[in-house]
């Protein structure tokens, strides 16, 4: 650990600095609000560090540049917001199919379609349930502040490399654009792609290699898929991340991530002041979703209250964990709306009275 250094930056910049500190050697991106600061930050920092920055002609090109960079063994990242991430889905599926690491950041905005540029959490399904075609998963990390934007990104590169699989940071416009002081106490990492046992860097001194996702021989693709599935099961077992806040003895537990989790945390404190035993469960890994941990908080009568900036997407995972829909409440705002503390408190109080 290097000594902590305090800096005041935006979430988007923290994400970029996390990548730079993690040894990201290649960045490609295409401007889109609300993540423009990130692309701009990378254009400056990658140059300063003598690494490669490309402003691509589209998100399609960006994700495929990342694929090219990744297959040389370098750490590679692209960032975008919802519509751009939709465009990248084929490439993300190829990354998973080719078993290539990469970090993809989605600073979510309102949808569907062009939507608006306000913060949103409506890409949860896309991120956690596939997005692209075929049977694949990726670790999805949801930072709830500027410090975590740095930390999740920093760690994402290791996770991606450990499994040779893309990792997504699922953030939103509020987290991306807010400013907070963060502590940077992480060592600069670097990778040596020449040591990679799978990268394509020319076949000098070894047999030639190929990296691909096409398997036409009878049974070959199913076999490949079985290998992928084994990997995903390991990820499910090892990469679960979450935070609990005042859940001990709680009768009502909020389940929320990102910006919604920040709001719910404040709500928990207010409800506690009024004598309502409330707590917060915050998944940090949205995939793998912390089903067991959430289930473990269930005392049989506990009320769970899912709050999202969407019509209710994580809600399905919460219901799956609790396995009793009648005790899972939901409040969501769509299209860039942000849940209001007062609305959440009203619903919570009514529910607790009823029980």
């Amino acid at each position: 650990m290097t000594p902590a250094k305090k800096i005041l930056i935006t979430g988007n910049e923290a994400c970029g600095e996390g990548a730079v500190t993690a040894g990201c050697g290649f960045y490609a991106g295409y401007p889109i609000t609300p993540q423009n600061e990130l692309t701009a930050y990378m254009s400056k920092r990658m140059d300063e560090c003598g690494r490669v920055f490309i402003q691509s002609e589209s998100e399609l090109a960006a994700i495929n540049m990342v694929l090219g960079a990744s297959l040389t063994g370098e750490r590679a990242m692209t960032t975008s917001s919802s519509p751009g991430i939709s465009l990248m889905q084929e490439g993300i599926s190829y990354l998973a199919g080719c078993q290539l690491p990469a970090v993809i950041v989605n600073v979510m905005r309102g949808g569907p379609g062009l939507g608006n540029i306000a913060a949103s959490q409506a890409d949860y399904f896309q991120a956690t349930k596939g997005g692209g075609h075929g049977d694949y998963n990726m670790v999805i990390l949801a930072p709830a502040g500027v410090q975590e934007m740095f930390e999740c990104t920093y760690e994402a590169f290791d996770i991606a490399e450990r499994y040779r699989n893309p990792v997504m940071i699922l953030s939103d416009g509020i987290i991306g654009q807010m400013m907070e002081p963060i502590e940077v106490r992480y060592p600069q990492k670097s990778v040596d792609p020449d040591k990679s046992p799978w990268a394509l860097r020319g076949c000098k001194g070894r047999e030639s290699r190929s990296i691909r996702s096409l398997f036409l021989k009878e049974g070959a693709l199913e076999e490949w898929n079985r290998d992928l599935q084994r990997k995903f099961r390991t990820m499910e077992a090892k990469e679960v991340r979450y935070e609990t806040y005042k859940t001990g003895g709680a009768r009502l537990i909020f389940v929320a991530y990102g910006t919604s989790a920040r709001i719910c945390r404040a709500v928990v404190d207010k409800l506690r002041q009024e004598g309502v035993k409330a707590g917060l469960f915050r998944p940090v890994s949205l995939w793998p979703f912390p089903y067991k941990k959430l289930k473990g908080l269930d005392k049989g009568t506990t009320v769970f209250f899912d709050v999202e900036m969407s019509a209710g997407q994580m809600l399905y995972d919460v219901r799956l964990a609790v396995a009793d829909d009648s005790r899972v409440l939901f409040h969501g705002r769509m299209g860039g709306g942000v849940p209001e503390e007062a609305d959440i408190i009203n619903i919570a109080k009514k529910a607790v009275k009823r029980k």
Partner: protein
Amino acid sequence: MSDKALKDGPMHYCPGCGHTMAHKLVCDVIDGLGVRERTIGIAPVGCAVLAYDYWNFDVTEAPHGRCPAVATAIKRLLPDRVVFTYQGDGDLAAIGTSEIIHTANRGENITTVFVNNGVYGMTGGQLAPTTMLGQKTATTIKGRDVRRDGYPLKIAELIALLPGTRYVERVSIHTKAGVERAAEALRTAFKVQMDGRGFSLVEIVAVCPTYGARSVKEAYDRVENEIIKFYPLGILKDEGL
């Protein structure tokens, strides 16, 4: 494993298919330049997608049309390697138009081998951007009609206009002399890259006898009598070596 760029053994291409000769030519040039061990090839989605089964150097496959984006990143990170894309006309001139234009325009120091056979071979002989007017395909059964299907796209001419490109040539491999010229063009294009001069592209007018004609001979005759009249052979841009 041998130290030749082309692996031994049969290729899966149909009899008379242009990809067989195009593979051989590319591999001969790589051997001739002695760069096999530092070459990275990017195969397209199209009939040539299985190129990694035939090429004895590092090969990857890109999503349909995206070879130039993949190649861009590889070359930026590994500037001393020889990086080339191998693309069909659907891959390069339809779905991947944006990537090829911007890669060329950025002057990326890579080489593109563009195999123009005038149809989508892999998916069953549909209209390609390069399909001739009046040509019958699976999706133009009455022949390509301008009002319905638009004009054939001379994308090599378009690419030659871009300031980032250094060398663009169109060759054909339907004659012995054409094959020899094609080898020379490919060698020049790779050398442009090895000299660090920027983007180079060789369009190889090839045949897809399976979907372009009733016989291999008819396909070759069409190249001579029709296709190279519309797609003239020769150097479209040469900014000196």
